[in-house]
């Protein structure tokens, strides 16, 4: 298993771990059966993500991608957060082993799920904005 130094750094010193008790949006994705659950908390003000926290049950890649994803959306607008792809997260981590790409998909989905929750709380249908957060493809194999 060949992790980059950046992955190992984000794993060992994850940024933005924790909860936001009065979060504006909370999203949880994943599946304990396959070994990964990600939960994202967002604090949003004027369309900008002011604060973000995460909790993750999962492998080194799952924790590192959660950490990196929170860094990449913090202080950015909702639009920018929505355009964040797992590919960008993987690149920011100097790559991931192929068998670990599915963990990065989860990070992207967790942010989208939290934004969906944010819109729902506002009484807005999230589907047209956030899109459909599909099932994790890897999970279908289980």
């Amino acid at each position, binding site marked *: *298993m060949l992790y980059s130094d950046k992955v*190992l750094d984000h*794993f*060992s010193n*994850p940024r933005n*771990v*924790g909860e936001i008790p009065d979060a504006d949006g909370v999203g*949880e994705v994943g599946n*304990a*059966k*396959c*070994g*990964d*659950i*990600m*939960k994202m908390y967002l604090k949003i003000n004027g369309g900008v993500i002011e604060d973000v926290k*995460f*909790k*993750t*049950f*999962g*492998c*080194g*890649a*799952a*924790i590192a991608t959660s950490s990196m994803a929170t860094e990449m959306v913090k202080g950015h607008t909702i639009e920018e957060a929505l355009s964040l792809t797992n590919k960008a997260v993987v690149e920011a981590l100097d790559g991931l*082993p192929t*068998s670990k790409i599915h*963990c990065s998909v989860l990070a992207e989905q967790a942010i989208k799920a939290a934004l969906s929750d944010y819109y729902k709380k506002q009484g807005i249908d999230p589907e047209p904005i956030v899109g459909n957060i599909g099932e994790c493809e*890897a*999970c279908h*194999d*289980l």
Partner: protein
Amino acid sequence: MSSSEKRFIYADNAATTRISADVLDAMMPYLTTEYGNPSSIYALGRNSGFAIEEARAKVAKAIGAKPGEIFFTSCGSESDNWAIKGTLARLAPKGKRHVVTSVFEHHALLHTVQNCGYDYTLVEVDEQGLIDPQKVKAAIREDTAIVSIMFANNEIGTIQPIAEIGKICHEAGVIFHTDAVQAIGNVEIDVNEMNIDMLSLSGHKIHAPKGVGALFCRRSMIPKNLIDGGGQEGAHRAGTENVAGIVALGRAIELATADIPKKVARVSKLRDKLIGNILKIEHTRLNGDPVQRLCGNVNISFEGVEGESLLLSLDNEGICASSGSACTSGSLDPSHVLLSIGLTHEVAHGSLRLSISEDTSGEDVDYILEKIPPVISRLRAMSPLWERIKAAEK
């Protein structure tokens, strides 16, 4: 020892072991001046040939076999593959086309059986990871060519009643093979007393290098070649011999089997200290039988924690260990061994295997016991699954 002092502790001896200085010394001539091909007729070649025969005698002695019953291979996996595929290739034309094995064999055995294109029966194991010999008996059919039951499990360390299973096989007139890769050096083995017809072993689990193994096999049951070619190993396994590796294996097995009771007494005490103390952490469970257990094996599940992140955290503390989590294997399913003893996927994901050896000191054990609880706390604090487990308790 101050708690800030970082140590390096290798607690993954079931994965592989360091080469001992003594073994390295034994093999070095064969990596330098003694480079002759054992098939060559001149003195340089003959020296290599003698060295191989000396190693063969040592391996034989370690398991109560005869030198002519030992065949060197490149690894434990090759030995397993050869035993199964070669026996089926030999006996299938005689109508023997069925294999009995257990659900929790090493993949070298299990995948071989599953891919060989013949019929097979997988015997279940109980919640402790023990195999009931009567279940093996029930699984044997008219057309069974070979029964293969591992001596000791590599993940949860359970030791099977091998002599009894061997007896059942012999009563049924079926060949009995055992994968003893994890047992060598940890359990006293006598192939005759234990009714074993074939046995796989591997060097790198007993302080020899990676890339050398052996198959013990009774002369009347030698499997069809897996590797055809030259006349090496009595024309049963082709390929220029890994002379240095074979010499190393000979020396290593001699050392590993010199005083097993003493090793077991010392190491199992450390093992039990680890188990007893780790189980004090809430929401943990021991995997495998507490008594019928390899002296160096600790396998514990921590609910709410994923194994790979546990390993990486321990690595940061200088501790090398392993896990049955799916995430460490690159597959989506956690260890088939842990599932076979009834663990749920979630609990299997949170498993930790520590495998200690004669090199492990009491201080190493104290250090491990000092480092594990804070690592578990940190991972649980960031785990949404742990959050759920705690919420469910209220």
